[in-house]
């Protein structure tokens, strides 16, 4: 029974990916991509990774899908230069060979992973009991710090570039009551996910994705105040997260002598503080990544 389910999910994901990549209709292919995201999230729940599944559904499928839809609207229909059939054939053969090689290599690679036992042995020291959060915010916090820096750079790049801010649609009568329910619920759920992240699946990234959804709903209806001030506040919030994380890293280094080595005993406080700041700042950065630069800042173009 469960094998049949797995096969169905795997095939569904593959089929949606195929549709997303060959469909001539842009909206259709983005829709297929989003559905693929949900199939993949299901697959990951089956593989015992609910944290990643949550993030994939919210960020990978949801937010990326929204970004793609925005661009699909702006770019118009697919304009594809014809590629000779030989190129298609060669590319297909190479890809098949690569896929085959990957299957063989992954299926036969049987080394015992070194990390799980290390993590299991020290999760108690990390201040949280969800091992994924422990790895992200304690054992491999350096990766996470760099990752927030990636977001900042992307924001810099986009704010120097993107063409026009989205013109918000005036909210219709149905939207307002909907928003009144959805946005507070999103905020509440985000807080819940953030807090639960210490012990159960969830955490800063998933919470940030939810907040982003709420923020986007507000912004698209013109309720966030599409002015220059909002843009600045969002960017400042985004940068503030990185600054706080850096400050925490340095502070911990001063206190314990190791970068991001939290003082023994109080690790949980540090992690929760950093996570909360990160949630807000990641959400702010994702919203401004979607919206593009604020009006008036670049009136020189």
């Amino acid at each position, binding site marked *: 029974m469960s094998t049949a389910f797995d096969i169905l999910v795997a095939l569904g994901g593959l089929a949606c990916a195929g549709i997303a990549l060959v469909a001539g209709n842009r909206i259709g292919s983005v829709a297929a991509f989003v559905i693929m995201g949900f199939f993949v999230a299901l697959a990951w729940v089956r593989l015992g990774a609910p944290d990643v599944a949550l993030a994939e559904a919210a960020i990978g499928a949801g937010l990326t899908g929204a970004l793609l839809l925005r661009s699909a609207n702006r770019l118009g229909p697919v304009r594809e230069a014809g590629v000779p059939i030989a190129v298609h054939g060669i590319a297909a053969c190479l890809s098949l060979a690569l896929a085959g*090689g*990957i299957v063989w*290599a*992954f299926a*036969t*690679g049987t*080394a*015992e*992973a*070194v*990390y799980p036992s290390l993590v299991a042995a020290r999760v108690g020291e990390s201040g949280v009991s969800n091992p994924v959060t422990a790895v992200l915010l304690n054992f*491999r916090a*350096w*990766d996470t710090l*760099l*990752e927030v*820096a*990636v977001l*900042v*750079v*992307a924001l*810099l*790049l986009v*704010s*120097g*570039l993107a063409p026009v801010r989205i013109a918000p649609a005036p909210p219709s009568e149905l939207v307002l009551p909907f928003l009144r329910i959805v946005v507070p619920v999103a905020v509440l759920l985000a807080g819940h996910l953030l807090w639960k992240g210490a012990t159960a699946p969830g955490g800063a990234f998933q919470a940030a994705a939810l907040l982003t959804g709420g923020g986007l709903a507000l912004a698209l209806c013109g309720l966030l105040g599409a002015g220059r001030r909002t843009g600045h506040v969002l960017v400042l919030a985004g940068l503030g997260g990185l600054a706080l994380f850096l400050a925490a890293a340095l502070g911990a280094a001063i206190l314990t002598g190791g970068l991001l080595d939290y003082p023994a005993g109080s690790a949980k406080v540090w992690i929760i503080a950093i996570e909360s700041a990160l949630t807000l700042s990641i959400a702010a950065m994702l919203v401004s990544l979607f919206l593009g630069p604020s009006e008036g800042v670049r009136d*020189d173009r």
Partner: protein
Amino acid sequence: MIAMTAMVGLGVALYASGRGRDRARGRADFWPLWLMTLGALNALFLSNDLFNVYVAFEILGLAAVGLTALARSLAAIRAAFDYLVAGLTGSLLLLLGVALAYAAAGRVDLDAVAELAQTAQGRVALRLILSGLAVKAALFPLHFWMPAAHSSAAPAASALLSALVVKAALYVALRMSLEGGVAVDPLRAALAVAGSGAMLWGAWNALRAERLKLLVAHSTVAQVGLIALALGVAGTGPLWQAAALLMLSHALAKAAMFLAVGRIAEELGHDRISGLNREELRPGAAEFAFAIAAISLVGLPPTAGFIGKWVLLEGLIEDGAWHWVGLVLAGTALSAAYLARVVARCLRGGPHVAPGARRPAWRAGDVAALGLATAALLLGLASALPFALLEVGIA
């Protein structure tokens, strides 16, 4: 390596700050990207973990693309898009390799490389990582995105991209080659072959380039090839120091060269090679800096490029690897040829220059270009210092 980053970064900053307030629009965006590039490079040079390397590469790639796109022309944006697609493909190949390495060895720090090289799966993983790095380093035949990106960016950005960003991938390749030991020999051979291909192809395109920046960008392809060749033939022997020295000297010389080209283009109003010897303008400091950088790239004494090539050739001759010697010499001759196209036109005088020719004014950009070129020269004269540092680095 960090010292190299800081030095080139300083030079570029000097140049950029000297660009005057008329370019204020691009400047506000330049500084954060510049800082991010340097920060990512430092993170990369210090990290000992393949996944760290992946994330640092993402920062670096995005910042580099931002720098390319700063020029704001359609060509620059197009080049930036292609650059980002290529860069992301490279990072994803790297990530695929890291994933496979985790499956095959159970860990992802750089010390695991030796272990990976023992198993067939591990070798596939290493191959994937290396091909990702090759995309990032613009190693032939995966260099397609690079000349466009480097030649359409603003000079200060090109200097950073060409001198440092490309080196980051080569540096990681060097680290992996050193960790891998004897077992990764086939990979090294592939690196050497791709390197020689890059050397010849880049030089050929540089010979045919019509614009100065394009010539310098193609010359980067050729020089990356030379460094990859050095990495490939070096093995675990002392020859890897030659490769590292070549990296350093190329970083300094190429940054100097791009800055000088930027200044030349500013004075002339264009950068067509055929129009370099104009009558009413005397050659200035920028041309001088370009010439010194060219000498270092070709590898004439007493520059750092010469020492690097000398150590490399000496080692190759001792090993009796005459085909590699021949390739290195051919590459050198070609680079001398294409750089001579420019230098010969710069060293004009006598009847070419009208009596009342105006001298170009001194700018901070000249100082930066000249300073970096001089540093390349001094690095050659005091080459004991980098060798001593490299000894420390390996110990």
